[in-house]
């Protein structure tokens, strides 16, 4: 079984947020409003944070794109009481809306803050599409029917693309990649099988120094960053 992972080259990343937009569009995540964003009740399956070090003029700002880290040792799966969050065999940490009771324990336990609670029923104009993507006839039934308020959502590494691609016999990481990787104008992102030594992600990790976020928490994330 593959172990899907992502490598983000911070040297190439310009912080343009194309990945965040692509994610919202692909996964039908509502836009929210500026007020909701200040209150932090909007959903961001993917976000880009800016971390500054030092004082002007000797200041350095790093843009860190943050999808879900899809940890090998996920704290959210550990604390979910309803088995709504689970790790698939290929390592993707999934959220089953039908099982989720909305206790928000996973939001409290996630060291990366990538989990989002759905605070309201989305209005029609906030959707990119009337229902969750993609066409259900391609991949069969989703693990959850509709988006509703009161459940926790998160990045899925665009599992629908991966599953559909595997069914069609395409090469994952070359022909089929998650929406954020697809959208990156500087090709700062790579997606592929971390266990496959021929994949681009393994090659990049072997060639350059890399790190993961909050390594001290022992979560072993599958999203790796190549340092500047």
């Amino acid at each position: 079984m593959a172990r899907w992972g992502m490598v983000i080259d911070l040297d190439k990343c310009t912080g343009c947020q194309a990945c965040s937009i692509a994610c919202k569009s692909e996964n039908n995540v509502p836009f929210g409003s500026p007020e909701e964003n200040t209150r932090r009740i909007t959903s961001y399956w993917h976000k880009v944070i800016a971390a500054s070090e030092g004082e002007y003029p000797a200041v350095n700002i790093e843009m860190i794109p943050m999808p879900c880290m899809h940890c090998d040792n996920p704290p959210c799966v550990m604390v979910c009481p309803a088995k709504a969050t689970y790790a698939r065999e290929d390592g993707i940490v999934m959220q089953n809306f039908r099982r989720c009771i909305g206790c928000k324990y996973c939001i409290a336990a996630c060291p990366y803050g990538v989990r989002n609670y759905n605070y309201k029923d989305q209005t029609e104009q906030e959707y990119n599409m009337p229902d969750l993507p993609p066409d259900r006839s391609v991949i069969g039934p989703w693990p959850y029917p509709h988006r509703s308020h009161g459940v926790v959502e998160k990045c899925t590494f665009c599992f629908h693309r991966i599953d559909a691609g595997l069914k069609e016999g395409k090469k994952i990481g070359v022909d089929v990649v998650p929406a954020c990787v697809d959208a990156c104008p500087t090709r700062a992102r790579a997606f592929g099988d971390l266990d496959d030594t021929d994949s681009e992600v393994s090659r990049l990790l072997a060639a350059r120094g890399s790190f993961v976020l909050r390594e001290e928490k022992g979560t072993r994330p599958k999203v790796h960053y190549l340092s500047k």
Partner: protein
Amino acid sequence: MAADFVAIEGRSRNYYLAVVILAALVFFGFFCFGWSYFEGHQVFGSSNVIPWGMPIVLAIYLIGLSAGSLILSSLTYVFGRMEYKSIARMAVYLAIVLIFGAMISIAVDLGRPEKFWRLFMFFYLNNMTSMFAINGILYGGYFVISLVYFGFILAGQQTATKIMGTVAVLWAVLVHMGTGAIFGFVAARDAWFSPIKPFEFLAAALTSGMALLIVVTVLVLKLTGRDIKKDMINSLGRMLAIFIIVLALLIFIDKLTHVYEPAREATIYMLFGPSSWIFWILQVGLVVVVPLVILFHPRWGKSIGGIVLASLSVVVGVFFERYYLVIPGAAYPMPLYPGHIEGVYGAVGLFPIQWAEMGLSLGIFTLLGLMFMVGLKYLETLSPKELVEQPVNSPVESPATAAQQSS
């Protein structure tokens, strides 16, 4: 045995007035819950930074209050201390009402409350590594055990009461440690992650529960025109003082370990940040300083008024301790990357006061008050007014009651 406890009359004008007011507030709380259910949790103050709001504050607060009552009743029914017998039944009933309120609070905090039953599908649909699932067993069991215990007390079965009382007290200890573990085991949040949290919760539960019991006892006895035994209140006050000292020690150690470790920003924010007045004035002041000053004062510490005031201060203060742990404790941004995180992801979380959330909290409190008042009317929980004059029939109780009469 039947003459030892009676129900209150409950026909006075004031009683009905109180019931009507409480019922109206319960209805308002229910309306707020319906509002949040149909509109989503945007009507609450919680966010993706501060995931839990007032209902969870209430839940852990009410669970804490429940313990002290139950443990106090065990002094009579398990350890045979007859001086507390006149309030022991009321204490058990109070414990049942409070744990019910805690479970209601957790249910209304769920985004999908109709899936509440999923928390109780132990080992089948539940992931048993979750502290919530484990606490499902603990809270549900606590509720059932307390009900059975109360049933045995009402039926007057002494041996069965003793056994169930012992089980209930040991189970109550587990319940509080489990509640503390919800927070103490979350490694992602530096301000929460602590092995001492379960013990701190246990101490806070004993302190607040004891304090609430003193307040409720004096209030009920006074409003129903019964005698207040000064000895009993005094000894309860002394126990309260000991619990407060233990709690203060645990809070101090907890904060010390968090400040001593290098990742101390979140705790520094809690101790000296803009909302630290809640910690210093409402938590340390009301839970530790004010009650200890009153209880160790040579004259105030002996008077019923002083002890009730100290207890009231503890009951209010422990509420803010819970509040401070759940809401500002989660507000400080997590160190996702070294350096200062710009913009909204590096900002301290906001918790606006929302009317729906406050109305819901008020509704839960008044629901408990209503249940307690109705329970006093229909259950035989209080000692009769003429207890002092009546001859005592039961040979087991006579020495203790005689001692009370002579004092």
